[in-house]
């Protein structure tokens, strides 16, 4: 592993890694049964340098922004490296957003380069929202069919410079990426992450979960997500490990990938982990009675021997078939993006498969706490990573208060949002908006949110303000959207839902027509962004002088009503 304390930037560290681990495999890409690509670090460099040169020839220079909208694949990482090599700022965008949302963020980020895949570009180019962003001057599209109409874009595969690119050094405090933690509606939250943020986060994470040449990370979470960027790109690369990409994420191909590529680590969102648990449980329950008893006995022995710490060798021996289904080399499943129920974590730990759960947010540079497995504590989100100062602000009688963080990994601020930045980072402390407390052994436990937002099991952050546009001109006096737990606080991080609060006109009622209108608008939202219930409120919404809704005061008033009888199903 490279000593990252000696480096100034992501680009400089990756540059050295490509030379130091030249003959190691760094990328494997598979499409169903077919292996499409297998690259060594040397070959990766040979692909990336001509791209970097061509970008420079096209005028791309230090501090310019380049966006990537791609599914997880080798060209994502090659492009990202080329951008860093040129001293550029990477803007990784979520490929699952709608074209309109993507154009909004492209405009907000002011990216001069866009690198995307042909199927995504087809939709982007045809979208009327294309007029929102005129800033991308160079648009590169991968895997376009031979006769495809590229509507102004260039083929990524042919965008090659002829000479060696110039490496443009950056300093630790320079911006490396702008990562959108959420917000495509009124207020996009583009987290400006510095090179230092990534270097320090990587030092902390790899001290607990190290990579090494020969190890293989299965990249399933989107690479634009802070977790996959760290453990599915930067972390393994600076250690000489390999990243495996799958072009289809159907459960059967994901399952096959574990034994086929002898996966060492994988990151999953809680929803996928839960699904995995369900599948395994069904298989265990289908075992004949006698075999099931033996199996349960072996699980009990494993539990007894791994109480204090994981013993991978022993677990693999005792529960051979389970571990072989995961390839026999799996060291840990990293779970993130949202809160995971303790019983799911415990289920896997009892099988001898540690789940590295933790807690973090993009603004803090991925992870704040991680379970260090000494011992495993399913009921907590682990201890602060090295270099993280975590404190609980305004704790109540139970010790529960807002979690705040100070660390070299905390973002420098939100792009173009100085006020929002000042509200979020106070005297150097990042206010997370999440509620938690430390137990006597220093493990953090979470107890809901202070902020008006939800996080889905798929790891999606949804801010109510961002989806209100869909309900604009709804024929009611006024409306707004809330996270249900913001109105009626619940000490839980799961099952969060959004509610539509309606103030009807004098004499107006909630008719079937109005309900249909609401449902139709709701259907236009991606399924994880939809509201789940309606709340009727018969007073004017409290507003500021500039007519913005005072959401905290409105929430307090709504909270005086009983949740169960107030929320109407949609």
């Amino acid at each position, binding site marked *: 592993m490279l000593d990252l304390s000696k480096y100034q930037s992501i680009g400089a560290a990756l540059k050295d890694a490509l030379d130091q681990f030249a003959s190691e495999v760094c990328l494997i890409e598979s499409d*169903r049964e077919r292996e499409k690509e297998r690259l060594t670090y040397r070959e990766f460099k040979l692909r990336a340098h001509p791209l970097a040169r061509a970008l420079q020839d096209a005028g791309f220079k230090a501090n310019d922004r380049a966006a990537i909208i791609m599914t997880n694949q080798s060209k994502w990482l090659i492009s990202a490296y080329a951008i860093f090599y040129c001293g550029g700022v990477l803007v990784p965008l979520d490929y699952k957003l709608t074209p309109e949302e993507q154009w909004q963020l492209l405009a907000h980020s002011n990216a001069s380069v866009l690198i995307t895949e042909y199927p995504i570009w087809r939709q982007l180019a045809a979208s009327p929202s294309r007029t929102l962003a005129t800033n991308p001057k160079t648009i590169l599209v991968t895997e376009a069919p031979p006769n495809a109409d590229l509507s102004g874009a260039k083929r990524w595969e042919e965008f090659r410079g002829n000479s060696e690119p110039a490496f443009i050094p950056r300093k630790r405090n320079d911006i490396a990426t702008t990562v959108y933690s959420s917000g495509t509606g009124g207020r996009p939250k583009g987290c400006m992450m510095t090179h230092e943020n990534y270097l320090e986060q990587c030092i902390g994470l790899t001290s607990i979960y190290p990579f090494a040449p020969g190890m293989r990370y299965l990249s399933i979470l989107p690479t634009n997500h802070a977790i996959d960027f760290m453990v599915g790109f930067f972390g393994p690369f600076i250690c000489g490990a390999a990243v495996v990409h799958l072009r289809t994420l*159907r459960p059967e191909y994901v399952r096959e990938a574990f034994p086929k590529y002898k996966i060492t680590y994988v990151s999953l969102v809680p929803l996928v982990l839960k699904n995995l648990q369900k599948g395994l449980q069904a298989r265990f329950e289908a075992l004949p009675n006698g075999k099931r008893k033996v199996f349960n006995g072996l699980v009990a022995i494993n539990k007894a021997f791994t109480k204090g710490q994981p013993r991978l060798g022993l677990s693999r021996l005792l529960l051979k078939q389970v571990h072989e289904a995961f390839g026999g080399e799996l060291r840990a499943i990293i779970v993130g993006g949202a809160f995971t129920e303790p019983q799911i974590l415990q289920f896997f730990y009892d099988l001898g498969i540690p789940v590295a759960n933790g807690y973090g947010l993009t603004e803090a540079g991925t992870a704040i706490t991680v379970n260090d497995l000494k011992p495993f504590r399913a009921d907590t989100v682990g201890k602060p990573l090295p270099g993280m100062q975590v404190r609980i602000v305004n704790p109540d009688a139970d010790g529960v208060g807002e979690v705040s963080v100070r660390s070299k990994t905390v973002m420098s601020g939100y792009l173009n949002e100085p006020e929002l930045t000042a509200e979020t980072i106070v005297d150097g402390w990042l206010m997370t908006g999440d509620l938690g407390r430390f137990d006597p052994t220093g493990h953090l436990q979470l107890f809901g949110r202070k902020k008006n937002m939800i996080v889905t099991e798929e790891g999606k952050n949804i801010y109510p303000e961002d989806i209100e546009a869909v309900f604009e001109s709804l024929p009611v006096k006024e409306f707004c959207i809330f996270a249900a737990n913001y109105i009626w606080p619940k000490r839980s991080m799961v099952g969060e839902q959004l509610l539509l609060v309606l103030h009807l006109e004098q004499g107006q009622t909630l008719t079937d027509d109005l309900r249909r209108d609401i449902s139709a608008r709701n259907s236009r939202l991606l399924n994880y962004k939809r509201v789940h219930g309606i709340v009727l409120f018969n007073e004017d919404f409290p507003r500021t002088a500039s007519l913005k809704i005072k959401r905290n005061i409105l929430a307090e008033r709504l909270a005086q009503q009983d949740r169960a009888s107030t929320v109407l199903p949609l």
Partner: protein
Amino acid sequence: MRTIDQTTQEVLTLASKHFQVPADSLAPDDDFFKKLGIDSLQALELLSRLENHFGIELPDYEVQGVSDFRTLASRIQSRL
């Protein structure tokens, strides 16, 4: 060659079998996430079943953002 209506009908029949709901409870314009109460992973399982039935490969990007049976059927039809 199937017509789009036939393809749509077959999609509805397979979905009803896969998720064990009455065939006549599903309509082409239904949002399958909402109507079947399924998550994105369960939707991926349905896609695998549809691929086997129609003998095609549907890349993940083709079904990205699709949530109703009619659009899903049209994506399948374009690959038959």
